[in-house]
């Protein structure tokens, strides 16, 4: 038992500290593929609805060739069928793919666009003109 404990401590000591050396690597790597959040664009409906809607419910989630297509609608007083919009999410769709139909999501307006948040995490970011001007990713 003592030996196992020693081995455990030794192993932990060996493998842990190197991560702190990363140089544009490990932690930065997710960013190397693309912005590590799904990038959303409204394909049906109005972007202003996104800003106006406090609470939004997921009506459907569909995987497409280049991402995820999500249909959402606003809930609450005064919100009609017109408060429905489709959001196409590309890039990192891991957050969007984990969202269930019927789940509530939140829209938070930020300087560079709107963040669609589910369970405290950003599943998509819809950049405005300012946001778009700061985003680019291409390989040389």
């Amino acid at each position: 038992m003592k030996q196992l404990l020693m081995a455990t401590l030794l192993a932990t000591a060996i493998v842990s500290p190197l991560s702190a050396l990363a140089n544009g690597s490990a932690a930065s790597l997710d960013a190397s593929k693309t912005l590590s959040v799904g990038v959303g664009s409204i394909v049906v409906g109005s972007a202003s609805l996104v800003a106006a809607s406090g609470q939004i419910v997921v009506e459907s989630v569909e995987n497409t060739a280049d991402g995820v297509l999500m249909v959402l609608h606003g809930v609450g007083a005064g919100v009609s069928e017109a408060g429905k919009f489709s959001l196409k999410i590309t890039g990192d769709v891991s957050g969007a793919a984990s969202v269930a139909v019927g789940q509530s999501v939140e829209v938070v307006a930020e300087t560079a666009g709107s963040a669609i948040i589910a369970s405290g995490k950003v599943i998509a970011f819809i950049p405005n003109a300012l946001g778009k001007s700061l985003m680019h990713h291409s390989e040389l």
Partner: protein
Amino acid sequence: MMKKQLLSLLLCLMLHPVFAEAGTACTEKPQSAETVQKAFQLAIKTREALDASGAEVALVGRVGQDLSKYNLHYSHMAFVWRDHPQGRWLAVHELNQCGTANSALFNEGLANFFFDDMFAWDALIVTPSPNMQAKIVALLKNTAYLKHVHEPHYNMVAHPFSTKYQNSNQWVLEILSSAMSEELFTSRSATQTWLKQANFKPSVLRISTLKRLGGRMFQANVAFDDHPNADRFAGNIAVVTVESVKEFVKQQDSAVQELTVSLQ
């Protein structure tokens, strides 16, 4: 008995989460709204500072990791070019691909550049003299040369005077060497010979044998076999870091400007 110990050690290493993550494909994790907001805020502030500087090209550093135990703050450096053909103020840099032993060159917007779990929301901007900037821009326009200098075998602790591997900051330094020497080096070894003659001083990290073993065995993007044995056994690991590149630029170009952008 010895066998048992070894088995326990191996089992333990296999169960350790770092082992599971090392050198594997990118794991994408959803970000918090605060992280997204901060990445854009730092990108906006950095762009404002770059615009105000009047520069057409600069070096930009970010803090992706806590390197304080090595007396370092910034972890990664890129060129940032105002009139990039694909967009204004794009970063041009080498990135390791998802913890593998390879890297590639990318053009990225400033938001992409800062979009990560930054350890600190600080950006370093190093602006060379206008004369040096013009030379750097000429090189950035020469995509073939940028690729020629790039060594895709990535090692985050690559030795500064070995051509076996290359880390991200080393690629920046080797491009800068051509701007400073006004010579399009035909090989990385020629570049490194010039760097030695020009008195480039890398950062020397103290890394113990245990850490070296762990890094080599369990992280595809860490290797020490390019370091001279004497230095390796003494635990002195020379690396091209943001700080060492910055100091070298200052040494070569007396008109260099340095500023820091931080989120409050």
